[in-house]
């Protein structure tokens, strides 16, 4: 795991709770205390009402596959050994969309709308990525 060479997130003060939760294999996103909107990606202010009153909440990790592409050529040289791999957008039950990889599924079995659930991948000692698999 020490030689993981794909692009890694570099969390900042605002996004750190998301990655800390991922490390515990939990999915957390933000919710606006003022208007109730669920927010992803992490922000300092609500994307709907701009209130600077966001809290972190655990969410189900369940969602539906909104769209996907099967990379038959690497989208970055570091992904060369993964081809073919599935880059996907998942629509979380709570509403927000999240970029991810679909794992645990043959590429030819992927369909838009399929129910998926978060699947956490510890890529090195510090970082866990949030992937999804068929539910």
């Amino acid at each position, binding site marked *: 795991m020490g030689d993981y060479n794909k692009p890694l997130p570099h969390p900042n003060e605002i996004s750190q709770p998301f990655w800390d939760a991922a490390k515990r294999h939990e999915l957390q996103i933000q919710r606006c205390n003022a208007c109730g909107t669920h927010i992803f*990606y992490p922000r300092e202010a609500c994307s709907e009402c701009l209130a600077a009153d966001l809290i972190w909440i655990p969410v189900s990790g369940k969602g539906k596959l909104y769209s996907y592409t099967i990379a038959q050529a690497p989208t970055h040289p570091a992904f060369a050994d993964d081809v073919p791999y599935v*880059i996907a957008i998942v629509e979380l039950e709570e509403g927000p969309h999240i970029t991810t990889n679909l794992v645990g599924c043959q590429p030819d079995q992927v369909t838009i709308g399929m129910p998926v659930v978060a699947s956490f991948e510890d890529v090195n000692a510090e970082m866990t990525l949030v992937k999804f698999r068929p539910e």
Partner: protein
Amino acid sequence: MSIKGKAAISGFAEMPPQKGAGNITPLGIIANMAREAIADAGLEKSDIDGLLTGWALSDYSVLWPSVVADYLQIRPTYFNQVELGGASAAGMVWRAAAAIEAGMCNTVLCVVGDRRARARQMPPFPSIEAEFDAPYGLIAANPGYALIAQRHKYEYDTTAEQMAKVAVDQRKSACQNPSALFGNKEIDIDDVLNSRMIVDPLHLLEIVSPCTGGGAFIVTSTERAKDGPHRPVVLLGAGEAGGHSSITHARSLTTSLVKPAAEAAFHMAGVTPQDMDFVQPYDCYTITVIVTLEDAGFCEKGEGGRFVEDHDLSYAGDFPCNTHGGQLSFGQPGLAGGMSHVIEGARQLMGRGEGRQVKDASIGYVNGNGGIMAEQCSLVLGV
């Protein structure tokens, strides 16, 4: 107050795209394009008092407009960088018109040049996308547009053959364009579908090729443009729209920001899509053309695949679309890729289309698109 009819493109220059990096810098290309466009408009360098430019991937720095002004030794009273990705060139047209109408300057040089980018020269992409998209391989444009294409197929039953036809028809026009990077051989739908799958459902021949090139055009008041050697290409309508960066957070993958941009442009011009003699929609991928034609109102939402199937998009066809071959066949020289649609629109309206001239062309639609459908600028140009 409206800028409708107030300003016109009076001249242009375009460098034939080159596949390799070429033995020339972006600033060198910009100087060549500036010299040729100024001459094409029948002007002197001293007539230029406005400058709009866009970044070069291969020479990226802050304060770029001043770098360009210094290199060209011009003294603009209005200058700026238009940073709308592939929509930058279209965005320059109305910004120039607005600056002229506001009295800030009289004649604006709009110019870009770039050499084929190497990965290490790329400017950094947004930190949000570096953190939440790149770790999963959603990097640069290919997978983003593939996500759009896949969803479009799902919602509207758009087929691989329909998407391929965009590349096929545009190639016919490219074969009449001596400057096109891929203009020496027509292709058919099987050629596209048999080309390598890159990011399913997009094949190699549905994806632009980065290259070296540049372009420039001159915008001045419609009155002043009448003194030039060419028919003034008048800006009749413009509209712009934005609202997302990562495609994951676009409000829709299949209904794009082209819709409000095009509606605004047609509204300002007081015309409808059906009045257009040709269209020059940004075509980084085949799916981009299909979504753009739908959202600009040339067909119903979801009918774009069937629309391109039912029409001949070549310069000689019943729906001339990207008569220079589109970037798919012309090449994508950085921001000059977006400029190629503006220049081709002007070229057709000036009657300078030569072997690919659209007969009696007097009004046309141009669309610039930046990022992953993130920046849209629509223009209606006419003579």
